[in-house]
């Protein structure tokens, strides 16, 4: 029987211990709450813009069958097939019915709640409650209008989900000034920033990988198709034809930029370049394709995750705030 000498077992155990410690250091770095303030303010604005953009169509998109565009019930039916426990606007309407409140009134109140939550988040008033309300109402709307939802909605849900769980309030919020709340655990702040950072790496790696698998991104035809595709026709085709030889280069650059994001965004020397390129890409998507909500949520998430300078909290601060 093969016997491992004690020294080898010890070496193996210390290697595992070392690996585990470095993983913990990676997962729980000490951070200040500047990034959280950026995320809170950015998402607050995002929620406000979302509510204002849909102001005129809110009832039409989310009313029940016979009153709205397609009726909320179909989207809610598809959602409830996945799980009946996923919140929808139908829940809120049902609650309102118990108090003799009409569907129109419930939808109006819901919209006002969403707008107010966005404003409160931006200002930093009642941060936690506002984050929970914004997440819940947006989730209900996204699920009820599931057939009308696109990428920006799921990313917004994710960002609000992380914000809601993060250690709010931050020191730039009104809550902190008014209630003089204690500084948050720097390692908890570091953990939630890591979550956001790792999530973005997934978003870009998977998005880049999927694009690399399509031939249209290598020859630029996908950029042409996406820019002349109604309702995204913000650039006249004649202008695009003038830059036709740039399109393949741009297409390949987008693929490489996205797929290599999880590597170069972590390297200190390349972080700024990748961040600037990604933000520029999203700004271009917003301006040239009219996908403002998608562009804004991605820019906010990127800036909060990698753009805000990491002022590592001192161990003294950690002890003071009662870490662990």
């Amino acid at each position, binding site marked *: 029987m093969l016997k491992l000498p004690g020294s080898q077992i010890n070496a193996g155990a210390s290697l595992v211990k070392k690996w585990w410690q470095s993983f913990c250091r990676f997962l729980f770095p000490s951070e200040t709450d500047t990034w959280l303030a950026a995320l809170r303010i950015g998402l607050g604005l995002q929620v406000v813009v979302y509510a204002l953009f849909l102001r005129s169509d809110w009832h039409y998109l989310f009313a029940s069958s016979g009153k709205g565009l397609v009726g909320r019930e179909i989207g809610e039916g598809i959602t409830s097939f996945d799980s009946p426990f996923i919140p929808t606007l139908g829940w809120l309407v049902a609650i309102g019915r118990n108090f003799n409140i009409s569907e129109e009134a419930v939808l109006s109140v819901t919209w006002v709640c969403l707008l107010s939550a966005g404003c409160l988040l931006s200002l930093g008033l009642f941060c936690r409650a506002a984050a929970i309300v914004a997440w819940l109402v947006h989730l209900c709307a996204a699920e009820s209008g599931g057939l009308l939802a696109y990428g920006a909605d799921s990313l917004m849900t994710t960002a609000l989900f992380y914000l809601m769980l993060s250690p709010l309030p931050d020191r730039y919020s009104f809550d902190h000034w008014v209630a003089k709340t204690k500084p948050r655990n720097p390692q908890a702040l570091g953990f939630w920033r890591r979550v956001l950072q790792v999530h973005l790496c997934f978003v870009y790696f998977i998005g880049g990988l*999927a694009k690399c698998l*399509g031939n249209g991104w290598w020859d630029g035809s996908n950029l042409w198709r996406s820019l002349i595709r109604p309702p995204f026709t913000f650039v006249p085709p004649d202008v695009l034809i003038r830059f036709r030889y740039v399109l393949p280069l741009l297409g390949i650059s987008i693929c490489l930029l996205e797929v290599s994001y999880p590597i170069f965004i972590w390297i200190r020397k390349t972080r700024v370049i990748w961040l600037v390129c990604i933000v520029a890409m999203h700004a271009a998507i917003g301006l040239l394709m009219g996908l403002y909500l998608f562009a804004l949520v991605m820019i906010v998430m990127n800036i909060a995750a990698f753009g805000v300078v990491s002022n590592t909290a001192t161990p003294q601060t950690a002890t003071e705030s009662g870490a662990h």
Partner: protein
Amino acid sequence: MYWRQIHWAWFGIHFFLLTAVCFAGIFWLIAQGSTILPSASDEYARDAELAATWCLGKEAEASNPLRRGIAMYLHAAGIQAGYTFFAPNVPNQHRLTFELFYDDGRVEHQSPQVLSKAAALRLDTLLDKLADERYEAVREVLVKMLAFSVWRQHQDVKKVRATFGSVNPPDIDEFEQGKRETFQPMFSFDFSLRDDQDQ
């Protein structure tokens, strides 16, 4: 006391689920044969997709509490779908037009209407989903609802014919030669006030 353990356990579960969702999406694209990979990989991709969806509990019965729990969490966290936007290729646009037949023999053409650009973008998303075979079961109902939304504004209409199709844009060379987008009908429905008939 267990603050760290709880956090890293959640981190592990959360990103395990996200990995499964993302790769299920990638493998689905490959299995559909819509990528540049050779067709021999389609079958492996189907198996891999199955494995990924199994991790998400989707192979269990619809009433399975674990499946429902995972689905609820995925939706709550906004990670129920992968991030394959505009990939592997930009899909064709889709169009739905209604022919409105009046009693006096007049015929008008109209599309579903919304007020804002933000809602128009969502309407386009809905039309793209109508073309997807995964939504085939609700296709007729959705078109009927959209037809009804138009009928509410033109209540003297006797019959509505809905035609749905794909809009194929020209490539750059074709555009330079003067070719413009072409419309390829996919299906149509006739709706009247009393009965509906699929054509």
